[in-house]
């Protein structure tokens, strides 16, 4: 999987580069309401199943200045629907800490939904 | 980062050097020793920190001192005329308008500014104006009575 290319499909991701085998580091800018974070962190691919077209990864990142960040697991699965259609299924379990966490569940859920929707749109346009 | 500002507080000029993040309420209380102004909720809701900046009431707990540079400020200490209390101050004493007293300076500054803008308010107008000044002791009837009478008194003495 071309991680840097997939990674950049996330809205707000500025750069992604490999820093080891199956490990990448990058920066991401997220804005949730009044809080704007510059998150630096890394992503480790924890599982890759070429037959099932499935990849799982762990992400972790923090904004040092504001004190906030994210950590969690993601599972991306490609499902063949037909010769010309592939469904991208993204499952995520992400925790928000510090300033981001203080904003409250409903708003974070809405933001996460919109980030994932944009990610899926970008992926389908890119590949 | 420090900044030098000029404030005219209760008629007296002050040049002060304060950190940019200094709140007006802290500047009044700690830099100038005017502890009549109280801080309670710290988020602009309760009204305990109410002071007049250029004649208008503001919440000094969410005001930056540097943003008041050049302003004229009136606090509760500036209301009495020599040793004669302002009619509103006297009325709060006469009508039992306070118990613990924390909200009182704010109540009096807010009602003073109502008097300045609307010298003949109805009771509903008083209630509406005073909405931003909370009291946890009196239940408000005594405060309303103090303001109604204080304003009447002030009008009488102005004539």
């Amino acid at each position, binding site marked *: 999987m071309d991680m840097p290319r997939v990674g950049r499909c996330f809205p707000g991701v500025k750069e992604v580069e490999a820093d080891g085998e199956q490990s990448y580091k990058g920066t991401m800018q997220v804005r949730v309401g009044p809080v704007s974070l510059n998150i630096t962190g890394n992503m480790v691919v924890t599982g890759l199943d070429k037959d099932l077209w499935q990849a799982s990864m762990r992400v972790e990142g923090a904004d040092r200045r504001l004190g906030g960040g994210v950590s969690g697991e993601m599972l991306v699965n490609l499902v063949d629907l037909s010769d010309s259609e592939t469904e991208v299924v993204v499952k995520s379990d992400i925790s928000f800490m510090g300033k981001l966490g203080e904003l409250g569940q*409903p708003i974070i859920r809405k933001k996460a939904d919109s980030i994932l929707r944009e990610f899926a749109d970008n992926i389908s346009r890119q590949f | *980062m420090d900044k030098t500002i000029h404030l005219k507080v209760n008629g007296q000029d002050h040049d002060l050097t304060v950190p*940019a993040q200094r709140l007006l309420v802290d500047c009044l209380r700690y830099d100038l020793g005017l502890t009549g102004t109280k801080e309670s909720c710290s988020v602009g809701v309760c009204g305990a920190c109410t002071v007049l900046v250029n004649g208008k009431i503001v919440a000094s707990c969410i005001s930056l001192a540097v943003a008041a540079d050049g302003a004229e400020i009136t606090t509760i200490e500036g209301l009495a005329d020599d040793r004669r209390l302002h009619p509103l101050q006297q009325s709060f004493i006469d009508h039992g308008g306070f118990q613990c007293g924390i909200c009182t300076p704010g109540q009096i500054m807010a009602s003073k500014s109502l008097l300045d803008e609307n010298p003949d308010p109805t009771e509903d107008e008083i209630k509406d104006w005073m*909405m931003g000044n909370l009291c946890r002791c009196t239940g408000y009837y005594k405060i309303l009575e103090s303001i109604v009478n204080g304003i009447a008194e002030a009008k009488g003495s102005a004539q």
Partner: protein
Amino acid sequence: MNTFEFHTPTTLDEAYRLLEAHGDDANIIAGGTGLVLFMKQRMVQPGHLVSLRSIPGLDSIRVEDGTAHIGAMCTMHQVETSPQLREVLPLLGETYRHVASVKIRNMATIGGGLSHGDPNQDPPPSLIALGASVVLSSGSGQRTVPLDEFFTDYFETDIHDGEIVTELEVPLPSPSSGGAFIKFLPRTADDYATVSAAAVVALEDGGRNCRDVRVALGSVATTPIRARKVEGAVRGRELTSSLIREASDLVQDEVDPLDDFRGSSGYKRQMAQVFARRALEAAVANISAVPA
């Protein structure tokens, strides 16, 4: 609060230069009621604050050529009590007087209130219903954005980097029109709205049918919203109470409220219906020159 450098530019050009020089590390400060609270909570920690207070001319109110031009640095209390505005746009005073308390309205500015982008604020529904726009100025020119396109997400707006809101433009309503704003406050009188709704309706010349209508709501989504389905259902028709009731039900599909301590999403959805209806009814009742 973190420390920062406090700048007091005396011209807009100087303000643009400061914003450009400090980029992401700078925040504009107007009345400070929103920003200082965020800074106290360490939600934002800017290195530079650019105050608009010392720039002359940003706090004027002019009514000309059928439009009210309200400077971004006018305080809410100034707009609420302006005799000139009360005469031509009574809905403005009727709306701004609902914001918090007098001491906050003495500090909070028109431009700061809109830039803040909190979906629970009172002024946006009325201003959207009135068809208002904001003027955004920067070193590279000026653009005007209608308020129904200005709010993009929770506390996010269409203000680009380096832009300053300099003016609010509100077209004066036509004759035979009426407007209303209702703030639903089940908790305390100084709270933010649980739901708010505004409506402005205009009748056809000499007729009873609705020529134009705008309905907008606050606290029902991540931004203030314009209820276009409701508008579509009444436009061109006679505003009977049964039509208003039917049309208001359509607001359900246009809102997506957040759960919070003021109410669940489902509750707010129902209240949106009730208050869209009441705002429309009140707007109709406020029409000044109803034909006999």
